[in-house]
């Protein structure tokens, strides 16, 4: 019997909190929240924090007064750390399937094949490898479609009986139905608040209700997108791969190539184009990025040699400047092996923040560049430290509008030599 390819959805449990815990074991078992930009509100909660009834998006000023009584620890977002941990997880996942789609900073889809026993074993192998190599916990959902794979992952997370890995075809049909009947429809991938209310009006409250709905009626009343979701829930794969996505705190730009790219020069061109497109997208949303991750992957055919290079670059300041982003993206090139068939490449921009009041650098850019002021500033900063010299407003050490409040940030353990994790010899 010929088996259809399946899709594994892998994501890191409470990613930001787990990344913090990987380097600070004292956070294990304690309620922990990671705060959004400027320490505004809780964006990631450890299970212990969830158990305290802390909601996503709860402002920190409301939580702070009770933190001591709860034993609650808060951390500012440490995007340098999260970006590097993400790149490590993705590179590791790439070893298990040549077909890898990085979906967000903490989740990816993998194309997988095999019988139920093999697929389950693969799921557990992936879970164990990520825990051991990188130190963060993941759950795995495996199903014929992306929507179902995401659903299975959710079950794997919320249901200890699955042991962190849920394979659609090995869950008995009556158990699936029971689980779907208990899951509100807005828990499905791609269904948000307003849509939920409109579905409720039609008597669709649970995932089971949605599976039972007529896809054509759904298309007419809602959209083709929602019809695809219904079909996907019924096991027909129809969600296209690799759409550009912008989330609350990340922008991902990745594409497959029509013909493989085999040279660093070719990838340089591709990365430059993506960086400029990403720059335009950032500008459109009024955002700047501080961290750029660039990656490439070889084509998913077994007879090819496989490689999944990636780099994580911390930009000197938040920016949407196409030149800076392009330069940063080129950091991938030394990791590219000539002659391999690269089938896709992409950029992930994280640590996004609204465009602040920037010093009017652009007006002077050309004149200064001619005089070599940029390199001079860089040299001085290198020698005497960041913030010792700068142009106009950038020279003032504190009180910059774009400087983020990150009072509770942990060390950037893996990207800054002077912030390495400390190990006790006592």
């Amino acid at each position, binding site marked *: 019997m010929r088996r259809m390819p399946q899709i594994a959805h892998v994501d890191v449990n409470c990613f930001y909190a787990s990344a913090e815990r990987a380097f600070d074991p004292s956070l294990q078992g304690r309620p922990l929240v990671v705060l959004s930009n400027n320490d505004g509100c809780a964006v990631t909660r450890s299970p212990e924090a969830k158990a305290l009834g802390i909601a996503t998006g709860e402002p920190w000023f409301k939580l702070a007064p009770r933190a001591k009584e709860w034993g609650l620890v808060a951390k500012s977002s440490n995007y340098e750390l999260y970006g590097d941990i993400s790149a490590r997880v993705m590179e590791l996942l790439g070893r298990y399937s040549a077909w890898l789609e990085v979906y967000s900073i903490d989740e990816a889809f993998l194309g997988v094949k095999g019988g139920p026993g093999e697929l389950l074993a693969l799921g557990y192998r992936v879970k164990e490898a990520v825990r051991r*190599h990188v130190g963060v916990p993941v759950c795995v959902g495996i199903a014929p479609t992306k929507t179902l794979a995401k659903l299975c992952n959710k079950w794997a997370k919320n249901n200890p009986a699955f042991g962190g890995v849920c394979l659609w075809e090995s869950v008995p049909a009556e158990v699936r139905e029971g689980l779907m009947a208990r899951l509100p429809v807005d828990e499905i991938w791609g269904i948000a608040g307003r849509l939920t209310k409109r579905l409720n009006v039609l008597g669709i409250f649970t995932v089971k209700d949605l599976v039972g709905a007529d896809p054509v009626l759904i298309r007419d009343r809602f959209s083709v997108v929602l019809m695809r979701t219904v079909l996907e829930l019924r096991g027909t794969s129809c969600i296209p791969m690799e759409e550009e996505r912008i989330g609350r705190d990340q922008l991902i730009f990745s594409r497959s190539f029509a013909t493989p790219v085999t040279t660093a020069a070719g990838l340089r061109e591709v990365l430059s184009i993506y960086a400029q497109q990403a720059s335009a997208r950032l500008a459109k949303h009024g955002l700047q990025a501080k961290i750029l991750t660039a990656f490439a992957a070889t084509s998913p055919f077994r007879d090819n040699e496989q490689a999944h290079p990636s780099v994580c670059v911390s930009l000197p300041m938040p920016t949407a400047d196409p030149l800076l982003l392009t330069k940063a993206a080129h950091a991938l090139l030394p990791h590219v092996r000539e002659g391999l068939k690269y089938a896709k490449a992409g950029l992930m921009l994280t640590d996004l923040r609204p465009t602040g009041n920037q010093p009017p650098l652009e007006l002077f850019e050309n004149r200064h560049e001619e005089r070599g002021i940029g390199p001079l500033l860089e040299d001085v900063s290198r020698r005497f430290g960041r913030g010792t010299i700068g142009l106009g407003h950038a020279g003032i050490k504190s009180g910059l509008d774009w400087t983020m409040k990150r009072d509770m940030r942990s060390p950037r353990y893996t990207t800054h030599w002077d912030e390495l994790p400390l190990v*006790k*010899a006592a």
Partner: protein
Amino acid sequence: MGVIIGPRVIDAGASLFSVLISPVAVAAGFPSPAQDYFDGRIDLNAHLIKDITSTFVVRVTGDSMEGAGISDGDELIVNRALEPRDGCVVIAVLDGELTVKRLRLTSTGVVLQAENPKYPDIRVPALSELTIWGVATRCLHHV
């Protein structure tokens, strides 16, 4: 005569140890006869890091491992993917802290040994009751 020092590595977190130094001394004024033999620089990443996804660098505080050549302020290269074996220098989780010790697997149990007589051994009933964070593979000792 001068030695060419290559460009600095950008602070990208991607190549912690890329030191770019040309192995040849170059005489100013005429081409070096050695330049045809230049076939790439020594890349410390390639020699010191077996697996980039599972390798981390940590810094030591304290003197309990001096007998193993690990001093206060040294950096250790740690591979999380390695199986901890008897005699390995490991990073273990003790009381919520990362601690460096030598792992001893004996017939009577697991011992975390310091390499300095000033510090006592720590006994653990079984390896399963211990969290090993990673296995140290190199010490970057400051001379």
